[in-house]
């Protein structure tokens, strides 16, 4: 009986050691696994086709907030780092990027590279040949999706000086309070003006 108790005590101690060892292995393994230090984002371009030497607006979203990514063009001619951008508090950025004028025409992949070299977002693009001395090609998209864009991807409208149409916030209570304030200001102002004139006359 005593030996049985002893054996069962030894057995439970052995099981505890085994469980602890397994837990340690799992924890060590988990810590050794590469943690994903950044989020996968999305890139948006006004057009997937542009010319070497062009300035193209690039918009990024859903990246890690306040993170740094490098925009890179990768093609048959090699890897061309374009610019380092910093995302804002919601993990977005907007940047106009100059495409190197020395790029040869062809298919490229625009990659947003995280600091650890991981591909955080990518788009397939086409670079057209630069015409030396020629006028830069016009920006193509104006308020419509461009051919070759993925489903749900929106084009960036060309900026204008025209104000946007706003669905303005209205509230009867705020408007009433504002009207009351206006009336009170006019009434008090007029009363003060009269009393000032009266006081000046009296002082004479």
């Amino acid at each position, binding site marked *: 009986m005593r030996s049985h108790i002893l054996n069962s005590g030894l057995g439970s101690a052995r099981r505890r050691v085994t469980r602890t060892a397994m837990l340690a292995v799992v924890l060590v393994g988990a810590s050794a696994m590469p943690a994903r230090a950044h989020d996968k984002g999305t890139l948006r371009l006004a057009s997937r086709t542009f010319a070497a030497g062009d300035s193209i607006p690039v918009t990024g979203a859903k990246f890690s907030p306040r993170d740094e990514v490098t925009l890179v063009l990768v093609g048959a001619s090699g890897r061309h780092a374009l610019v380092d951008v910093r995302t804002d508090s*919601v993990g977005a950025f907007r940047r106009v990027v100059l495409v190197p004028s020395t790029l040869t025409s062809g298919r490229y992949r625009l990659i947003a590279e995280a600091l650890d070299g991981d591909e955080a977002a990518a788009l397939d693009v086409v670079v057209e040949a630069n015409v030396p001395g020629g006028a830069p090609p016009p920006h193509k998209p104006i308020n419509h999706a461009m051919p070759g864009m993925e489903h749900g991807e929106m084009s960036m409208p060309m900026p*204008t000086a025209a104000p946007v149409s706003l669905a303005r*916030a209205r509230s009867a209570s705020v408007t009433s309070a*504002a009207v009351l304030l206006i009336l009170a200001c006019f009434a008090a*102002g007029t009363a003060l003006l009269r009393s000032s004139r009266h006081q*000046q006359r009296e002082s004479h």
Partner: protein
Amino acid sequence: MAGVTSPLVGGLGDRLGVGGLDYDVPARANRLDFMLGALTLAALVVLALSGVVLAQFYDPTPLGAYASVRYMLEKSAIAALASGVHVWAASAALVFVILHLAAVFWRRGFRNPREGLWWSGVVLLALLFGLAFTGTVLLGDQGAVEALAHATAGAKLAGPLGAPLRADFTPSTALLSRLYALHVSALPLALIALLALHLWLIRHLGVSATGSERAPFASHLRRIGAVSLLLVGIVVAAALVWPPELLAAGQEGFEVTKPMWPFLWIYAAENLFGMTGMLIAPGLLFGFLALVPVSDRRDGLASRVTRVVGTVLFVLMIVAIAYAALAPGQSHLGMDMGG
């Protein structure tokens, strides 16, 4: 009732030093052209109060900024009203400060011993332009992005003086966030300090109005209160009737907008002289304003020349604003002009 309130009011008046306001001022000081500075101050108070409301809704991050401004205008009636009041009060403050400067210049209110008053006023004017610029940039719309692009280009031309406007001045913080900090803390603090000096100098040196006829300061104060209240009423009414506009979210690399009206004279100078115009025009204006108390110390040729030059500059500024408002847009940074 009067017997009950008088000791209370009197006691409070004694403790608050209200008796210090019991003095006479020239009766001419009750004219509207002597109240332009007070009207500027009233507009600044409205700006501060509406700004406090706006700060509860604003997100000072490069992309969050535009969304938060749009949220204010589309989702919150009180923020939309505060936004309109802020914009109209800013225009009112700039109109009144320019008119105040012109009126003081015309009546030579900068002469001995009021040079300090003039110079503090000139710096106040520069601070108001700084507040208007940073306020424009905070919108995050196309006009804001272009204003910032112009400012950073100007900062490059200005050398080390323009360093704070460079994106890499403090790489850990976005330029927009730093401009927000300037707009809500550094510039208002400087403004308050200079206003305190300006008001103290007015109290110490007296109003520059001439004439032997006197009026109690209390009547002057009432009149200032009256016109200030009327101004507040007009500003709130304007905000209700003409709410502020907003352009689409800003995209870098384009020049399709013109600046807010107080900066149109600088825009006109850029049309004529290129990017250096944005440094030449303000440099010329503020350089002249700084020299006025030195060049016009007493009647004579120098005094007449100063008056002519000042008048020409003032007229030129008005003409330049009108020209820039009507002329077709121009690219100053070699960017895409759209369309």
